[in-house]
């Protein structure tokens, strides 16, 4: 089955302007994916505005110079700079200037200045069943799984190309038949107290991603309804340990009212029965620091912290002074509430470093520290911090992260599986 473009799409693709360039990128990707046609999209979330080097800036500026602009609502994922001025980014010139030029180019293309990896908590929530083109692996998995909108994992540049053309390849998770579960990931063997704990979801997400890879599974055995931040943590961890773009939780996520409805066939192809031993191993695998006697920092907020997560942070710190900083990464959407009643100032007085528009694993914020140890409650930070920051990682609950930041050494009190 080869790709067929409509006469209008063909005409656009033949153009020498930015729209032509975008249409060729979409069409070339569609061909690579084996998509038979392009479909219209309702919105986009753009991950391409993060500076990884000059090439991305040059591409975005080429699109601007050649007259392109987005055809659908498009929010922006994190950039490499904190435009809100909350934290100091150590990116030096000339990279700093190139990163700013890149962010500016995406603004000129008509994208919203959301600068967050949690756009779904910043008012961008496409309707159930709608087709969209989202980038950023955690946003993709949340959009598909929790909102039930349909997107593939759009890589950098395809996301903006889809936004400009208003089109996406008809492929993969846009097609209902590809959204059904083939595997069961059964957590009924875990204790209810563990499942109710904060660390359950990022740890299970990390295990889920490793176990299922890019297959689609349904999680069963979940009593009660995990909150939105728990689902966010699960998806983010799953998308960083495996190529997970969509998960279902029976009785929780919108396409899986029950197991029978969401399974692709009468029987699952495999059933993964999760044991406390598997969970303990997955949890241990999130840490790379062996026995650390001290920590240098705590990082939270991958995906970006919600206001509810800031409430928890405030409650746990309870006005105490921290011995090491807690880097709390968030989007500007969460800042407004924080500015009320001097809440942000109080957190900063305790030693919290609020990071807006960006985060500590995508741009240099934390000091370069040979042998540095970072504690985090984020499965995604745990996955990426060693490679991107050079810090070894200790994984723990938010409560343990806060206690450890107060003492400057790791303490673990949270619950076992």
């Amino acid at each position, binding site marked *: 089955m080869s790709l067929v473009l409509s006469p209008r799409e063909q005409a656009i693709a033949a153009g020498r302007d930015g729209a032509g*360039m975008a249409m*060729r*990128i979409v069409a*070339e*990707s569609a061909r*690579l*994916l084996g998509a038979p046609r392009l479909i219209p999209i309702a919105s986009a979330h753009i*991950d*391409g505005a*993060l500076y*990884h*080097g*000059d*090439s*991305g800036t*040059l*591409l975005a500026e*080429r699109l601007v110079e050649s007259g392109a602009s987005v055809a659908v609502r498009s929010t922006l994922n994190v950039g490499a700079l904190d435009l809100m001025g909350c934290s100091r980014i150590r990116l030096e010139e000339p990279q700093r200037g190139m990163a700013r030029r890149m962010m500016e180019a995406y603004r000129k293309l008509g994208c919203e200045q959301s600068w967050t990896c949690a756009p779904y908590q910043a008012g961008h929530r496409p309707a159930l069943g709608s087709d969209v083109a989202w*980038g*950023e*692996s955690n946003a*993709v998995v949340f959009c598909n799984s929790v909102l039930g909108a349909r997107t*593939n*994992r*759009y*890589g*950098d*540049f*395809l*996301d903006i190309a889809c936004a400009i053309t208003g089109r996406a390849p008809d492929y993969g998770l846009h097609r209902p038949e590809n959204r059904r579960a083939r595997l069961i990931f059964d957590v009924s063997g875990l204790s209810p107290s563990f499942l109710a704990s904060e660390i359950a979801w990022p740890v299970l997400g990390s295990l889920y991603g490793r176990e299922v*890879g890019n297959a689609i599974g349904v999680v069963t055995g979940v009593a009660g309804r995990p909150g939105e931040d728990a689902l966010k943590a699960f998806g983010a961890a799953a*998308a*960083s*340990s*495996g*190529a997970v773009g969509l998960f279902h939780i029976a009785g929780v996520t919108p396409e899986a009212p029950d197991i029978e409805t969401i399974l692709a066939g009468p029987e699952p192809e495999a059933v993964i029965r999760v044991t406390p031993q598997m969970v303990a191993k997955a949890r241990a695998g999130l840490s*790379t620091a062996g026995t650390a006697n001290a920590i240098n920092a705590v990082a939270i907020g991958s995906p970006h912290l919600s206001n509810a997560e800031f409430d928890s942070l405030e409650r746990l710190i309870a006005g105490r002074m921290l011995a090491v900083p807690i880097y709390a990464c968030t989007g500007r959407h969460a800042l407004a509430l924080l500015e009320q009643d001097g809440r942000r100032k109080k957190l900063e007085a305790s030693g919290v470093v609020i990071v807006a528009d960006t985060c500590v*694993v995508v741009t240099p914020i934390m000091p370069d520290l040979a042998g540095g140890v970072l504690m985090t409650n984020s499965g995604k930070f745990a*996955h*990426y911090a*060693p*490679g*991107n920051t050079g810090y070894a990682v200790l994984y723990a609950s938010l409560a343990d992260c806060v206690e450890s930041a107060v003492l400057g050494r790791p303490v673990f009190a949270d619950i076992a599986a």
Partner: protein
Amino acid sequence: MSGAAEILVPGKAGEGEALVLTAPISFWGGVDPKTGRIADVRHPQHGEVVAGRVLFLPGTIGSSSASAVLMELVHNGRAPAALVLHEPDAILLLGLIAAREMGWETPMAVRLERGAFDTYRGTSVTVAANGAVTVAV
């Protein structure tokens, strides 16, 4: 030793020492875009450099910024000499598609069964203009 491979993204034919990855990799966070060094400490080939190598990829995982890292490697002259993938990865290969739109010279990406990867380990490999993957003598 030769494998007939399907061309996924056209580009410059290449030759280089084989780098056969034994685990899937996330380019973003896993490969340094400035040097091409594998930076992921959990990856079995941590410390190896992809630049100038014929890179055999059993699979890719993780971030949707893989394309940006690959385009940056191309722009910095640190791209692999060729990419050999078990299956097309549209996120990663977008880096080559976008780089071609910018008019930069890109390596070729071809498809080959991962079962055949092992025979290329430790050899110098040519990826010809027709997509054939051959051990150079």
